[in-house]
């Protein structure tokens, strides 16, 4: 007799493995196409960053007439979540799941937070600006709704990026990690550049309806692209699912990570260097405009040159570290290139030479690219196999907090000098202490980093997980389809 139940089960089982969002086997070799697909999550992260810090920054101030200080506070809100990246990473490391997943649920939750924030953001902004009947609405509604939407998007971005990077680290062998880091950085830049142009074109003629369409369109795009990115990326791990529940505390896990040689030092280097490079991000354009009287188009090109330099840095670091170079060498070289770069920026103010500023910007971008790539690669290589999420969370927490604080500090220093009625101030004088401080921070980063470079790499950041591999990956071409 025909066994209907067996037949149906077989069909459903084969159907299920094809259309389930998780991979069935862990592969030793992950093809480049799959890594490219995974790196799409960085595109949506870049999109969210550009939308909030660039496009909405302007739209809120110019079109919606929200006070600039309120806008600055709203945009700084996601920074509150940056230190929690370490906690998110830790939670994903020790996630209990019957399905044996640990990264996918968090990427999905982060995506939902991002989507939810974008979904309510346009209406929150319209209420905040007193559009339509909202003029009579109590003030707290607009304020709290806008704050909630920015918090949701920010938390989602932190979550997706932290756990996404952890998943990428899980997937590739250590020798390939430099290339993956390069890929992730490049995709972040690509997402930022493409979406900056797209938002500029879409919001060329601003109407409230258009604002709603653009932001909600970003929400849908985020879910779609992140869905494609995470599809079938993480393998189910039955042994992890079956393992008895182990209660780790965050403080214990953190103490274990911080107890590793060089880990705290590495985090200090990341904080110092990121602050050093990050301070210039928002000040280069006004510097070019006010001191060297460059036009808006020219100063915008300055930002493009900075991005171009970073791309060159990522490319070089990928090749160099991919061929066995040491990550800490790239970190030191990047920071050391940054110091003369900011010196040249200051020199361009003295001799009033715009081409020199462009060259210095390219050099600074190049150094920042090398430094960023080197620190992320070093973090990945230093991470013990079972603490990848926590390590990358710590990297993200330090990096995002340092960058945010640096941008704020740079702006405050400039405004303070600008406000001080000192005699004989030139147009350049508000910027001089900022760029000098950047050079100083980078010098400090090099000094802190040098012992890591001199130290025995096998002891500090060597291939520690060769013997302790948790997932004995199978060769995909040989593995039979799962039962």
């Amino acid at each position, binding site marked *: 007799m025909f066994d209907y*139940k*067996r037949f*149906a*089960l*077989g069909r*459903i*089982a084969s159907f*299920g493995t094809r259309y389930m969002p998780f991979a069935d086997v862990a592969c030793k070799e992950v093809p480049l196409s799959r890594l490219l697909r995974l790196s799409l999550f960085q595109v949506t992260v870049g999109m969210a960053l550009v939308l909030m810090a660039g496009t909405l920054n302007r739209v809120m101030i110019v079109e919606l007439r929200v006070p600039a200080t309120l806008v600055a506070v709203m945009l700084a809100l996601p920074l509150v979540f940056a230190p929690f990246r370490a906690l998110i990473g830790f939670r994903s490391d020790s996630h209990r*799941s*019957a*399905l044996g997943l640990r990264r996918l*649920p968090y990427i*999905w939750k982060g995506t*939902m937070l991002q*989507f*939810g924030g974008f*979904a*309510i953001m346009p*209406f*929150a902004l*319209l*209420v905040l600006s007193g*559009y*339509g*009947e*909202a003029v009579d*609405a109590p003030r707290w*509604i607009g304020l709290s*709704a806008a704050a*909630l939407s920015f918090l949701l998007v920010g938390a989602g971005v932190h979550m997706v990026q932290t756990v996404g990077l952890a998943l990428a680290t899980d997937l590739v062998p250590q020798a390939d990690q430099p290339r993956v880091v390069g890929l992730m950085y490049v995709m972040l830049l690509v997402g930022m550049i493409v979406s900056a142009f797209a938002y500029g074109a879409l919001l060329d003629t601003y109407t409230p309806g258009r604002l709603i369409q653009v932001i909600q369109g970003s929400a849908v795009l985020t879910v779609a692209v992140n869905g494609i990115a995470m599809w079938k990326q993480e393998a189910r791990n039955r042994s992890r*699912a079956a393992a008895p529940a182990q209660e780790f505390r965050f403080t214990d896990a953190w103490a274990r990570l911080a107890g590793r040689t060089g880990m705290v030092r590495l985090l200090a280097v990341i904080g110092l260097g990121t602050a050093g490079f990050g301070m210039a991000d928002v000040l280069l354009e006004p510097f070019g405009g006010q001191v060297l009287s460059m036009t808006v188009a020219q100063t915008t090109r300055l930002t493009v040159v900075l991005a171009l330099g970073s791309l060159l840095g990522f490319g070089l670091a990928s090749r160099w570290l991919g061929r066995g170079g040491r990550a800490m060498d790239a970190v030191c070289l990047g920071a050391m290139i940054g110091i003369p770069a900011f010196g040249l920026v200051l020199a361009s103010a003295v001799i009033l030479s715009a081409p020199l500023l462009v060259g210095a910007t390219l050099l600074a971008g190049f150094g920042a690219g090398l430094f960023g790539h080197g620190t992320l690669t070093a973090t990945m290589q230093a991470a013990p196999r079972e603490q990848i999420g926590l390590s990358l969370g710590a990297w993200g927490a330090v990096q995002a907090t340092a960058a945010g604080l640096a941008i704020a500090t740079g702006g405050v220093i400039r405004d303070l000098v600008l406000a001080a009625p000192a005699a004989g101030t030139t147009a350049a004088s508000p910027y001089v202490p900022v760029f000098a401080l950047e050079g100083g921070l980078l010098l400090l980063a090099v000094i802190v980093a040098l012992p890591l470079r001199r130290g025995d790499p096998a002891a500090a950041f060597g291939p520690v997980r060769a013997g302790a591999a948790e997932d004995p990956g199978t060769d995909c071409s040989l593995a039979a389809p799962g*039962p």
Partner: protein
Amino acid sequence: MSNDPDKVWPTGLTLREAEEVHSYLIDGTRVFGVIALIAHLLVAVTTPWLG
């Protein structure tokens, strides 16, 4: 196909796995529901409908 007594028909998931898949569905519904509610409230504040 194994005849694992834990596996429930028709998906072949164990009971705990099935409950976890279900929990994602429930969580998603809740989150999207709350977000839709907030969005509707905000739209009602800017352009009130129903009078």
